[in-house]
């Protein structure tokens, strides 16, 4: 069996999870701790990828990051490679799928912190930023870890947006999900089944871990 697609999926999902973590935690912190005009709109925009048709999302990515777009062009002149139809495109696609999970779960975890603890930190001389990093984040670590595991599980299996944005180029952008599709098309069912089993076991294991992390422990804290 060709392990390439699985390895590519892991590589893409790892980078996508890191990207989604940086952007998602920042957005979640903003939504959890500040009231400002447009807050609900930001929430909607970052939730949308959960329910938006992948083709629609893919279309937007092609328009904003395609070779003729300003961003896509700038990226290409800097790095010499385009975003779309490369591994970068697959990473972008997986990040978009993972982001809503990070934003939603991290926000919920941050909002669970007793606000009095944050105020206590402030009265003890902490700036908002220090209170965030020394009190709110440490108290939400389990929730944040769970969010990142969910994000990884989601990122590893992205299909629709990846196909739109990165295509299905064997050895270059053919991730496990796309390889399963191609194998089925070519009636190579055994190859498909192996990858299906591996992905299933991995996702179930991740979800089990998430459940363990988010379960309430009586002696916690």
């Amino acid at each position: 069996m060709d392990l390439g697609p699985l390895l590519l999926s892991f590589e893409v999902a790892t980078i996508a999870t890191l990207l989604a973590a940086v952007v998602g935690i920042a957005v979640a912190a903003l939504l959890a701790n500040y009231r400002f005009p447009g807050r609900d709109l930001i929430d909607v925009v970052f939730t949308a990828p959960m329910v938006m048709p992948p083709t629609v999302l893919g279309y937007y990515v092609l328009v904003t990051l395609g070779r003729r777009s300003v961003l896509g062009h700038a990226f290409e002149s800097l790095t010499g490679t385009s975003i779309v139809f490369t591994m970068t495109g697959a990473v972008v696609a997986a990040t978009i799928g993972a982001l809503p999970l990070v934003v939603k779960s991290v926000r919920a975890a941050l909002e669970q912190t007793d606000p009095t603890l944050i105020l206590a930190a402030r009265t003890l001389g902490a700036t908002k930023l220090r209170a965030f990093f020394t009190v709110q984040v440490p108290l939400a670590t389990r929730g944040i870890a769970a969010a990142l595991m969910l994000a990884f599980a989601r990122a590893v299996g992205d299909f629709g947006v990846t196909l739109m944005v990165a295509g299905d180029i064997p050895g270059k952008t053919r991730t496990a999900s796309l390889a399963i599709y191609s194998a089925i098309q070519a009636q190579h069912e055994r190859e498909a089944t192996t990858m299906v089993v591996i992905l299933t076991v991995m996702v179930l294991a991740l979800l089990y871990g998430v459940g363990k992390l988010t379960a309430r422990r009586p002696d916690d804290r």
Partner: protein
Amino acid sequence: MSGGDNLSVRIVLHTRSFTLDVAFEVKPGVTVLFGPSGSGKSRTLGCIAGIVRPDKGRISLGSDVWFDETRASLPIQRRRVAYVFQSLALFPHMTAEDNVSYGIARTIPKAERRATAHDMLAKMRVGHLADRKPHTFSGGEAQRVALARAFAMKPKALLLDEPFSALDAGVKLELLAEVGDWLARERVPTILVTHHAEEASALGDHVVMLEKGRVVREAAIDDPTLSLPKIRAAAK
């Protein structure tokens, strides 16, 4: 240490349900804030600490202006007001020592901060808890750690929001004596919110009674016309 300065409080704050409109002076020593729940005690503390911004008024300590309706207010972290919350708000993920050193100025080297935290815990007779986390503390121990944290930050003012309410009588008296000692040494303007006459008379120098967002009476704690049962009735 700015011991000796008065804390002047003048606050007007409109909320949906009522208007808080109070003015009083807090001298070094303990001013007891008395009043039924909903009379505006916690909001008053919130305004002083910088958690709530009043609509109008002025809050100052000596020549330091913390809030003035015409200016931007001084942010919470720069007021150096020690606030002991009713829930104590000890950081559950930190040891007693880390809790106490959290509020010590970070310009001081870390080793020195740790030593100060240790000293303060020992003074409050909970030195043995230094490496333990709050979920292992008894009610009285948690209170001692919370007070140690408040004292260690060398506050310019101290706000005590019913911090002794959960304690049994014996522990409470012991703790009141220790707080009394610290206050006598440091001469920091202190506000104590309490429903209990014995706490008021043990620590208080001055009483401000609130009702429906207004000051209805101010008196020295030993004012013969101020009978404690009356205070107790007002607190209910």
